[in-house]
């Protein structure tokens, strides 16, 4: 029997050596590899999103700021480790948040399309927000009972806040999760100033390396690099004037509609003539930027993009383009003088003028006899410009279809190319090539009709140049970038984009003509009773005929400080719709009481 005990002895000892040998292999030979694998298992990198910078107006009043909202998020890695895949937890959470379980499941499901509200475009390893702005009482129930809500996180996160509601919605733009890099979960600016100054506003994300346990609870923090908050963007927007501008546009549209006009779109620009800074920029239809907070609902997004609803997302002051009509005549005057017409000469303004074999008539067919260029602007005579255009066409046609001088002058006024404003999505407008076969095109062009298209902003900067003595600026809304600690990072100065090819005398004549418009000219009715002696305003009305639609109503104006341009599409004549709206804006700027018409 001894032999059998010895056999067991040998077996037990062999077993012992096998186990110790294997232990040596696992711990000492391969220990490093297993340790690395284990660390990879329970180390998490968490991106600490920076707080986005604010956008304030010229006096420091906030246009966009942040508020903290308790956000309930779900950590999928922990949730899916639940015995039932987290169904029970989601059921409890849904009841607590007053949502349906299916809705939560939809939100935390990783998606492959663009970022929307009904699936998750970010990394599956970080908590996925399920509901924002959750009341504190409910958040406490989650944080106090981690055993009942494994994988559910309630924490404070900053969200965008718009203290003025819809004010300057198009200027400000919006932020949305970046769908191009779904792992970087920080929201990026997608339109307006949020997009143009995204790099400055965004800040730098921090990083936290954590050790978590099997339930996803943080055991300890390995290292932490705090996030740098985004800088504040100080703009040249004046919230008060912006508010007045938007109100003026709304009133203008309402009044036009009461007269039976569609008035489906409108835009207005208020600029500081001397500096090229934008004081107010507004467009209708508009929308409430709050819809973007927390990811946009697909239904809301469809509404914002729907042309039938007027595509409210479109910033019409910079991205919309229309025929400028008579506001264009300032360029035609400049072109005529440049082509050798005497500035102070007298020119015939007949009721009709024959261009080639086609008669072109004055507005209403009325003639004014022999008048100055100044008076031509005041009464908005067309036939003078038809003649200039025709004669110039004949001169260039002789030179083998050269460019029409009026097109060249218009280009020098900054038309036909983007102004370079610090907003995305700017339209270039349209300038024809000017090598027309028929003189009728040139005639139409001379009064801002036909092919030419301008954006309200292009027109505003051209009139600002007339007001400031001839300097074309690339307009700017951003004024200063101020870091979170108060130091100024960058000052933004609107760059000079060119000079008007207009002599001093010509400019003076143009200004005189425009000054008469509000007193005795086409806008005299709109400015009746306005204290023009105290606050002289110059301007030019425009009424563009659009085939199959009501007229586009324009009014471009300036005083010694500001330039104000108003456009109401399908709004009727410039004098009856756009000019009164401009008057409302001027009243706010000058502090003149708005009379209720």
């Amino acid at each position, binding site marked *: *029997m*001894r032999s*059998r*005990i010895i*056999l*067991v*002895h040998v*077996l*037990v*000892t062999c*077993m*012992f050596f*096998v*186990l*110790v040998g*294997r*232990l*040596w292999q*696992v*711990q*000492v030979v*391969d*220990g*490093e*590899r*297993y*340790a690395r*694998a*284990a*660390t990879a*298992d*329970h180390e998490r990198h968490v991106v600490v999103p920076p707080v986005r910078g604010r956008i304030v107006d010229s006096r420091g009043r906030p246009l966009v700021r942040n508020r903290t909202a308790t956000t309930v998020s779900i950590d999928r890695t922990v949730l899916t480790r639940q015995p039932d895949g987290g169904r029970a937890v989601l059921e409890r959470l849904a009841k607590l948040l007053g949502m349906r379980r299916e809705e939560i499941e939809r939100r935390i499901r990783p998606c492959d399309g663009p970022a929307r509200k009904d699936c998750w475009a970010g990394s599956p390893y970080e908590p996925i927000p399920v509901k924002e702005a959750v009341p504190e009482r409910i958040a406490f129930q989650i944080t106090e009972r*981690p*055993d009942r809500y494994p994988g559910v996180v309630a924490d404070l996160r900053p969200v965008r806040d718009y203290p003025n509601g819809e004010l300057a919605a198009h200027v400000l733009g919006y932020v949305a999760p970046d769908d191009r890099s779904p792992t970087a979960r920080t929201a990026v600016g997608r339109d307006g100033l949020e997009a143009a100054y995204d790099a400055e506003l965004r800040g730098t994300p921090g990083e936290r390396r954590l*050790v*978590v*346990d*099997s*339930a996803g609870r943080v*055991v300890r923090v390995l290292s932490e690099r705090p996030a740098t908050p985004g800088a504040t963007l100080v703009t040249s927007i004046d919230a008060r004037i912006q508010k007045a501008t938007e109100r003026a546009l709304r009133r203008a549209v309402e009044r036009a509609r009461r007269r039976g006009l569609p008035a489906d779109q409108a835009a207005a620009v208020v600029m500081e003539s001397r500096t090229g800074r934008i004081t107010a920029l507004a467009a209708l239809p508009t929308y409430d930027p709050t819809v973007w907070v927390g990811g946009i609902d697909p239904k809301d997004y469809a509404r914002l993009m729907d042309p039938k609803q007027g595509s409210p997302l479109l910033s019409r002051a910079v991205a919309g383009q229309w025929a400028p009509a008579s506001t264009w005549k300032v360029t035609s005057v400049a072109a005529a003088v440049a082509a050798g017409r005497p500035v102070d000469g007298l020119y015939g303004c007949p009721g009709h003028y024959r261009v080639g074999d086609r008669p072109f008539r004055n507005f209403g067919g009325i003639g004014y006899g022999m008048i100055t260029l100044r008076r031509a602007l005041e009464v908005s005579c067309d036939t003078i410009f038809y003649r200039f255009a025709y004669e110039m066409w004949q001169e260039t046609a002789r030179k083998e279809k050269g460019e029409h001088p009026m097109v060249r002058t218009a280009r020098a006024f900054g038309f036909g190319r983007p102004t370079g404003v610090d907003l995305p999505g700017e339209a270039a407008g349209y300038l024809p090539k000017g090598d027309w076969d028929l003189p009728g095109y040139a005639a139409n062009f001379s009064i801002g009709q036909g092919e030419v298209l301008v954006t309200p902003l292009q027109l505003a900067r051209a009139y600002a140049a007339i007001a400031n003595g001839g300097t074309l600026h690339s307009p700017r809304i951003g004024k200063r970038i101020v870091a979170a600690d108060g130091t100024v990072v960058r000052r933004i100065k609107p760059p000079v984009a060119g000079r008007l090819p207009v002599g001093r005398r010509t400019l003076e004549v143009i200004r005189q003509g425009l000054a008469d418009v509000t007193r005795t000219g086409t806008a005299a009715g709109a400015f009746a009773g306005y204290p023009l002696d105290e606050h002289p305003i110059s301007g030019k009305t425009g009424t563009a005929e659009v085939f199959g639609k009501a007229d586009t109503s324009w009014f471009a104006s300036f005083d010694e400080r500001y330039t104000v341009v108003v456009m109401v599409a399908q709004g009727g004549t410039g004098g009856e719709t756009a000019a009164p709206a401009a008057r409302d804006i001027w009243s706010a700027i000058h502090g003149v009481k708005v009379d209720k018409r």
Partner: protein
Amino acid sequence: MRRVLRALDWRICLPAIVLCAAGVVLVWSSTRAEIHDTGAYLSRQLGYGVAGLALMVALACVSRWQLRAWSVPVFVVACLGLAAVLTPLGVTVNGSRSWLGIAGLQFQPSEPAKLALVLALAALLGSPADTPGRSPAARLPAALAVAAVPIGLVMLQPDLGTALILGTITAGMLVLAGTPWRWIALLAAGALAAAALAWWLELLKPHQVARLLSFADPEADPQGSGYNALQALETVGSGGLTGRGLFRGDQTGGHFVPEQHTDFIFTVAGEELGFLGAALLLVLLWAIMWRGLQIAMRAGTPYERLVAGGIVCWFATQSAINVGMVLGLAPVVGVPLPLLSYGGSSTLTCLAAAGVLMSVRSDRRPLPVMSLAR
């Protein structure tokens, strides 16, 4: 008092006490930062350890004749306990109906059944050869019949690991009882055939099959059935030569290994005490087995030899399966590590076995009772 001290064998006592104390500390470490009952595992395991050591000392003082007289009743009680598990008194934990819930305490009858089987088989196989009806030819079927009762009851729970250990105990004791090799070979062939049959007839539960399959390829389903084995390896491997230090293991603190305080307690030793600490624990276990075999070698009667040998077979198999599964050498079967794993039933039974080992050793001073009997 002197009687008690004389009854103790320090070559068993010392490693048993050290292993028990180490077990308490490892259980404490593995259950630290549990949200629910902080320290409850620690105090309970401490209680089991103290009660077990008392039981060990008490059994060490019992004479081998008393022990032998108790063998059969203990075995009957143990089998009744196993049968009771299958009644409504039984409690199901982790898919096995292995627990008896009595007055708020949970008890696992399959643990004492191991010791009871050792005692019963020793009584049967170790009876003098000239006892009527106990010819070697009749003993084998009798022994198999005795072993079949607890093995069958454990299979019904079902608890594959315990059944495996009971089977190995039976096989080991048959070998030690001097059963001819050809019969043993026949038995082994029969056991293999039965296992193959069970596989083909799909008698195993799905989770058992999954565990066996994931042993073959643990990376196949790292989040599912292979998770435990993979995490165990990563945890042990993280320890390196000297370990992360007690209470400082990230894997242990993070509760990445399920059942870490019971069946996977060795992973805590591996991560926090390193190769040196874990190997020391294996050496201590080996020391107890070594001493047990020495007792068997020097035993005066076949009964004592078989008791000591059976206990060694049991400890050896259980340690090999447990440490083997932690180190990826064996499939994951739920078997506690003797003296180290958390659990009252296991701790008490293992310490009782240590007491029995001391009781059957022949080199202890004869007690007064014995001289009277002579």
